[in-house]
């Protein structure tokens, strides 16, 4: 059952991502991408990373993609600019090379490291325990990162110079 679900959602993720990068209309791309994130969230649930799955839906599919959709709507696209994938042999070659190399590389990573599944489940409590003990400095750093992003965004999007 779990195996079946993984292949269904994994396949969905690949399919929707394929549509995302190949759709001519950016709005369709953004919508397909929301689907891709939702499928990824399902994969996270199968990996018992429940908090990450929730955040994936809330932040990625919810916040980030809505932001993208907003911008796509605000910048009016001219019809002739909406080109789809431009296949170039070099790009295909790079992609295929990488995929082959990567596939061979991770081929038996699981058995090589003698892995057995982790018993810890990614609940909010378990994550919080790690995040607020070992990773408390990075957590503070994130606040500075977001402050900088807000400040810069406000300055760059100011319409006119009101001195």
């Amino acid at each position: 059952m779990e195996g079946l679900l993984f292949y269904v959602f994994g396949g969905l993720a690949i399919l929707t991502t394929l549509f995302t990068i190949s759709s001519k209309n950016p709005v369709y791309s953004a919508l397909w991408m929301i689907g891709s994130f939702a499928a990824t969230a399902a994969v996270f649930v199968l990996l018992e990373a429940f908090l990450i799955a929730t955040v994936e839906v809330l932040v990625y599919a919810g916040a980030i993609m809505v932001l993208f959709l907003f911008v796509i709507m605000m910048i009016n696209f001219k019809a002739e600019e909406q080109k789809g994938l431009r296949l170039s042999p070099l790009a295909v070659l790079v992609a295929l090379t990488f995929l082959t190399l990567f596939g061979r590389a991770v081929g038996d990573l699981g058995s090589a490291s003698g892995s057995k599944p982790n018993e810890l489940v990614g609940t909010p409590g378990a994550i919080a325990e790690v995040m607020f003990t070992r990773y408390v400095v990075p957590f503070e750093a994130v606040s500075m990162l977001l402050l900088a992003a807000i400040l810069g965004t406000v300055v760059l999007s100011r319409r006119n110079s009101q001195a």
Partner: protein
Amino acid sequence: MTPELLTQIAALKPEIYLTLGIVLTVIADLVFGVRGRNLVAVLGLAAVGMALWCLADPAGSHPERVFGMLTFDGYARFFRALIISATGIVILHAVVFRGMENVSRNEFVPMLLGTALGGSLLVSTDNLVMLLLSLELLSLNSYLLAGWQRKERRSSEAALKYLVYGALASAIMIFGFSLLYGISGSLSLPVIGAGVSAAWSGGVLGTTQLVVIVATALVLVGFGFKIAAFPFHFWAPDVYEGAPTPVTTFLAVASKAAGFGVLIRFLDAVFLGEALNAEWLPRLGHVIAVISAVTMTYGNVTAVLQRNVKRMLAYSSIAHAGYLLMGVAVMTSGLDADIGLDATLFYLATYYVATLGAFGCVMALSNRFGAEDLDDYRGLGWSAPFTGAMFVLFLVSLTGLPPTAGFAGKVMLFMASLDSGLYWLAVVGAINAVVSLFYYFKIARAMYLRGDSKFIAGIPDRGVMVFFARASILALGVATVYYGLAFDGLKTWVESALL
């Protein structure tokens, strides 16, 4: 709060002062607006000054390693001093820089402090999470600052280009991080080093060894973007030219130092930490040596063709990244890591002084004469004797001629690569130094030998801040000559910074 936690926090004092500076400058800007221009700059400079003062505090008042992921050793102190002091000098110049809109001049200071904060955390950390976040703090601020002149199309384009490539580099690097995590089961660089060497010696090529290679390649691509090494340099010239000059200065000096700081710490912890990989490490060293040679040759040869002085200095900074990589190649070639590291850090310090000074002169000339292209520089040496003479001095140092610090830096690099048997690399470096003489001399020739030597007044700038900006150029000039003649002091400092 336990006393132990307090001592750990005490180690973060410079960063705390920078953060305080960010908060206070934002508040001062909100309260006083454009009128508070000097106040904001003074607050920013005070934060930088306090941070530097805390750095000068002798070690021992706090533990070296805190929170399990930040190491405040001599190495971190060296890089933090470079990054934070460069930030101070850039703030000084930015306040009086005419090519920037007054509306957004105030917010410039907290953004720059944020960048310095990111850089200083970046060179201190040995944990991938912290590494990622401080790198992003550095990068996100840099993207925004590159586009700070909203009315200039060039500036916005530079920001977008920088951002697209930077984000791509981060994504590739994070994917590499995930593989490193998979190999070792940890996010801490020393543990990753142990895991990598176990995977390398335990596996046969095609399985786990291939994972190590793929992960290393992905991470190095990310770092290559950040330090603008060939073939990932292509964003640099456009960004350096399009960004406001104070930002360009920061990118060329502080960002580059931070990039090298983290690259070297990464290589050291992951590949040099365990005494093994006798076959793997020299190969990595050779790859880096080839990248170094191509990077410096490309940078220097392309710089010869440029007319815009900022763009020329951008290519020159790509070339200098190549020189710095020369030291990194020596470091990883497996013989004696310290020789290479020593030379790299020394060269970085001389590059820092000369580049900061050269860009300071570019800003001063642009303020007064609006000079941008080589043609605009004609005869300016006679009209602005102080700036002109200083500019020539810094160019001499960048070329690597005596009696400047740049000469000592180049000699150390070449000696290091000869010592470790990389003869061809030393030869390439020497040829490159000759090529670089061409275009550096072109600037000097334009200033003194071209055009007529009659006095052009330009728009002279006055004020306390201008005075201090001038003084900083003078100080950098003095440092260039002083460390060229008596480089023992600098050498001692560098030796205290070895990993």
